[in-house]
């Protein structure tokens, strides 16, 4: 057991490391955020960064049954909370 405090550190989906999982907190409003919701980036769901493109962009995410690529700017619209420190 590591002595990491139960942090609910808020971050953006673009800050995830490859393989890391997190919970979606919210998606910014606006046309883009709306489309992200429609595609399946829905608050409450678990999101995982599965890969990065050459030179760090774009990013590939899995949310439930969705597997989709987003640019960093688009991933920044997704607020997440780290759940892995919780599990540890």
């Amino acid at each position: 057991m590591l002595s990491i405090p139960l942090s609910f550190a808020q971050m953006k989906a673009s800050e995830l490391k490859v393989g890391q999982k997190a919970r979606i907190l919210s998606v910014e409003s606006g046309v883009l955020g709306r489309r992200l919701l429609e595609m399946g980036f829905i608050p409450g769901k678990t999101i995982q960064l599965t890969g990065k493109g050459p030179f760090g962009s774009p990013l590939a995410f899995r949310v439930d049954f969705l597997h989709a690529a987003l640019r960093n700017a688009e991933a920044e619209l997704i607020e997440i909370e780290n759940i892995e420190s919780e599990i540890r």
Partner: protein
Amino acid sequence: MQKPNLLKSKTLKVKSAEEKENRLLPRKILLVGNPNSGKTTLFNQLTGLNQKIANYPGVTVESKSGKFSLIDPSNRIKTEIELIDLPGIYSLNAISEDEKQAVVPIIQFAKTGDIEDILVIFVVDTNNPARSLHLYLAVRNLGFKTLLLMNMAPMAAEKGIYPNIESIQRDLGPVPVVISSKSRGKTAGLIREAVRKFPSIPIPVEHNSVDHSVFNNQGVELEKQWFTIKEPSQKSARQKMADRIFMHPVWGPICFLTLLLLVFQSLFTFSAYPTDWIEGGMDKLTRFLSGVLSDNLLSQLVLEGVLPGLTGIFVFIPQIAFLFMFIAIMEESGYLSRATFLADNLMRRFGLNGKSLIPFAGGAACAVPAILSARTISNPRERLLTILVTPWVTCSARLPVFVTLIAVFVPEGNTGWVSTRGLVLGVFYLLGVVAVFSGAWLLNLFFKPEKSPSLFMMELPDYRAPQVKTVIKTMLERVGDFVWNAGKIILAISVVLWVLASFGPPSEMQKINEKYAVQSLENPENLPLGYKAEKLEASFAGKFGKIMEPVLKPLGFDWKIGIGLLTSFAAREVFVGTMNTIYGLGNDADSDKLSEIMASEKRPDGSKRFDAATSLSLMVFFLLAMQCMSTFAVVKKETRSLKLALLQLFLMTGIAYVASFAVYQTLSV
């Protein structure tokens, strides 16, 4: 194929109410659903038409209409219903051109209010139900009668997702729900049966209170209520493994480039044998016909005009077939969307989008459908740039020209372990790509920046084994298109060309006849050397070519090539047919093979006409020039601007002229 007439619903409004109530079958059926959920596959199955299908979102970029016939089992009466396939959408808020093509008609139908006799077959991607259901509710709330198709259900079952018909119908009433089976024919049968239930489908009560400008989580709720979700089977682990390689930041691009290299190598090596068979066959046919036909003008037209023109096209069937096979496999397997993922970072730097890769890959076949597929790019500026540079991708029509010219000046043999000719061809494909990116980079500097955001939201569908049937069908169709479309034009042009090249001002033709004392016209086998060439030069075609010659001379082209360039504006591959006709008419060489005739062609000073300088200059011209009426037309349509289409035409041709000039002047010194 016609576009669905959206205004029809207005004129049909005059129908009496009575007639409507008695209606047992829908007047129109719309296929609605998320991108890549299998709508077009269903459309093809139900209509017997052949619309393009592939495994990436955004294959269908315009609505397509077809006829779907139902036979009433009681009285054997056949009813035809219009079936409309719409591009895939995520919601009724369109953010790209292809989405507008779907959303506008749906809203239009709902607005006109005459929707009691329209049925929406809503195609649910069972692999990801929540998202489909979100869209489904929006469409249903417009008041459409709906049929739910749980598509790709066998695949979803492997992931542990099962639809629950009872709970769906408990919530919606007797809405027909069809669960797709592995056999497409069986699924189509279930759909036919369900469409017959049309009269009993309830008209949904309109929920005007639902505000669709705000996203709601209803889809997620309904997924929980209407679907049973169990632990996924092991199959998805293999999918993830594949992505770890193909989408790896280093291995991914290496795999992609290796794949492309293999494709171009095999274009040459695999197709060598079938090409020889076709050449041999056409040769036998020509000899046979020349023995059988009596010697008159008509048989001369067939033997010297039509047959050489057609041979020029037929020999490229194997290469075209292989090219399309590879493209189809990339599209069908789901690899293409991974390739866009790898390309996005690079593309962005040139003002393009990862999704530009789809038009570029399609451009290797033909720029016309490729330019249409740019509709999925939501940013107008990126889309425009993509449209403007796509014709620089080496298309299948340039392939015959390149292959012929390479055979003229590059000797057979290997460089290292690759064939030299294949290598030169590969270099030209690469040069096309270089032209695409430099062009985009330049245009990016000159075009005004745009405010609307640049997006790259690309779904990565599950890999699936390419269906042999689909790949072969795509191959055959494209080859058929190539032979038929190119064949038509070539036939017409070779006839006109033969006439122009066989006849000339009578006084001059007379002189040549006298000069060679042609009494031997009855015996065409023994014509004196040089007679045919001189006659061609004096013909109308020769005169016309001579007028153009001063402009083309700095590029190393003579009047014969000039005629070829002119006819090739109809379609590039026509060049080869034209060369066949012209050289067949004006050459005394023994060989029937175009590349050999061209290789033996001499300049006035006795040197080779098609030396490396001229051949390369000509190839560069074909690489860069916009010699295609159809592309011009589709660019004008897609950009809605004659000015842009003209700009592209003159820019491309101007650049081609300058580049060819530079190549020829450098190499011929």
